[in-house]
């Protein structure tokens, strides 16, 4: 039997598979057993009440989806009264995703939800920072460092920081988050994108722009996980277009300690369970006793002789 457990900082997960924030809620418990998941991750909560974006909020594109849902949130009291007790009924560690428009509001929220029953905080710093002209915190190393440092001071819970792929140098942002005290990085959020309806000449999303997710983004985010894994020592949770155990294995080989599955669940509600079972099979087939043996096990061929490299390219 493959040992599927992995460790993210101080938290031991029964397996490396968990949902991506925003694509997961109690409705899925009608289809799959949440006690089989490595962790549970809530939809992002905010302190302010948010109704969300205008419709349409999602659009289909080739091999993926665009969304601009707009983080509808019923605020902290509702979360404490309903969401937290609801998720406590399951055994998997609960990760609470939070977001805020300023670093100060981020820290207030982190402190408010640092409660028994919460295993870790996932800070979604891919949202617009109103103090930086609406640019996402995680687009820049400096704003990442500021918000993560304040978050670190506000909570004793493990702090996972969810990065945006919409930045020129994700490794630098990753280093800033680690330096400021993050316990793990979630790489990454959706890729900023848009689509146009050729019947109506209107944007396909009510918000005009939105986030691209699904199989279309997997190679891009896989590359970013690889870049971050080389830049930091803290664990990385890969998130981007993972649909199968093969996708998850690829992410782990690139350096991820665990993976998050989002859009795939919308098509196949059992996707996470199949990935857990599939990872065990994959490891067994490759003679690996532990799934953690996959982490960063990417093999680099040494190509240091120019003539060899050129011969290869010409062949």
């Amino acid at each position, binding site marked *: 039997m493959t040992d599927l457990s992995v460790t993210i900082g101080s938290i031991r997960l029964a397996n490396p598979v968990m949902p991506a924030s*925003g*694509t*997961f*809620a*109690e*409705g*899925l*418990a*009608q*289809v*799959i*057993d949440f*006690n089989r998941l490595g962790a549970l991750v809530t*939809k992002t909560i905010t302190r302010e009440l948010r*109704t*969300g974006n205008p*419709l*349409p*909020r*999602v659009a*289909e*594109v*080739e*091999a*993926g*989806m665009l*969304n601009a*849902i707009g983080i*509808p949130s019923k605020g902290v009291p509702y979360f404490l009264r*309903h*969401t937290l*007790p*609801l998720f406590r*009924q*399951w*055994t998997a560690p609960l990760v609470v995703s939070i977001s805020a428009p300023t670093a100060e509001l981020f820290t207030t929220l982190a402190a408010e939800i640092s409660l028994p029953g919460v295993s870790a905080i996932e800070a979604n710093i891919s949202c617009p920072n109103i103090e930086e002209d609406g640019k996402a915190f995680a687009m820049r190393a400096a704003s990442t460092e500021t918000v993560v440092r304040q978050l670190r001071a506000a909570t004793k819970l493990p702090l996972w920081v969810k990065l945006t792929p919409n930045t020129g140098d994700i490794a630098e942002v990753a280093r800033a988050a680690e330096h400021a005290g993050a316990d793990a990085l979630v790489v990454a959020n959706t890729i900023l994108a848009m689509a146009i309806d050729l019947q109506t000449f209107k944007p396909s999303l009510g918000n005009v722009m939105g986030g691209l997710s*699904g199989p279309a983004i997997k190679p891009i985010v896989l590359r970013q996980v690889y870049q971050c894994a080389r830049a930091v020592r803290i664990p990385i949770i890969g998130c981007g277009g993972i649909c199968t155990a093969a996708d998850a294995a690829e992410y782990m080989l690139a350096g991820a300690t665990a993976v998050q599955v989002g859009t795939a*669940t*919308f*098509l*196949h*509600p*059992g996707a996470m369970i199949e990935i857990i079972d599939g990872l065990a099979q994959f490891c067994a087939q490759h003679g690996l006793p532990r799934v953690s043996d996959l982490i960063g096990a990417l093999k680099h061929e040494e190509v240091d002789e120019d003539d060899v490299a050129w011969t290869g390219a010409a062949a």
Partner: protein
Amino acid sequence: MNDPGMNDPGMNDPGMNDPGMSVRDTTAPFVPRVTAERAAVLSNDLVNSEYRRLVVATGPLAASAAPGQFFQLLCPAAPGNAPFFRRPMSVYGADPARQQVEFLYKVVGAGTKGLADLTTGQTLDIMGPLGHGFTLDPAWMHIVAVGRGAGLATLAPLAQAARQAGIGVTAILSARRPDLVVSDALFRSHGATVLTVTDAEGTSGPAHVEALLRTLIAQDRCGAFFTCGSARLLRVQQRLAQEFGLPGQVALEQQMACGLGMCFCCVRDFNVRGEILHKRVCWDGPVFDLQEALP
């Protein structure tokens, strides 16, 4: 949570909708309440020039679908032409004894085009049953079902359920032309009175339908309204329901992605005791209180 079931004790699935009510014994073995399975196509035939009836063989959970509930179908399509999401489709019929589920659909886009190409023996990935369906109060002697377009398919399973509950049904079925009316034979087979109204005959306008409904109300044959598929007929029924103090339910459609209340893509505005709220059609509905719906 703004649970439509709160006002409606008969709603068929109160548990998961209200977080406070859903704490379960985690030591008990997991029992799914929604299935995702590959169902074998038994038949997929045209019923008129626009609509097809698809019958699939399913497991017992899928076949337990209630009237007004829906499935999310992973519609097949040629590579490069495939819709990315599943497509919601209301249940046209579900037979627990024969373990079958039926859908009635019109080809309108990539998803339904893929469905139309399915042949007997092929399989279709279905996920369901989903959402809150219609609720029947045995105290009602007679109800009225008013539908148009795809709404005729959604209302159809009410015919059998009402008969089993000893409730009489009058169905007002609206279409562009008489030959495009669907579900009329099914309603009649369960003893319902069927009135068809069509654009071609000039009988489908709200004024005429209102006159029909006022007659039924006067005859005590309208204990509740059930409707789907027409915003203007919904408004007529909302007005009459207010005037005569009658209850009603409406099944609504909306673009969906997950179907399980996770993504918040299918929200609509509802008027809940004067307050305008967002609700998810897939999770809080698709059947809602008649007066709460905003067209």
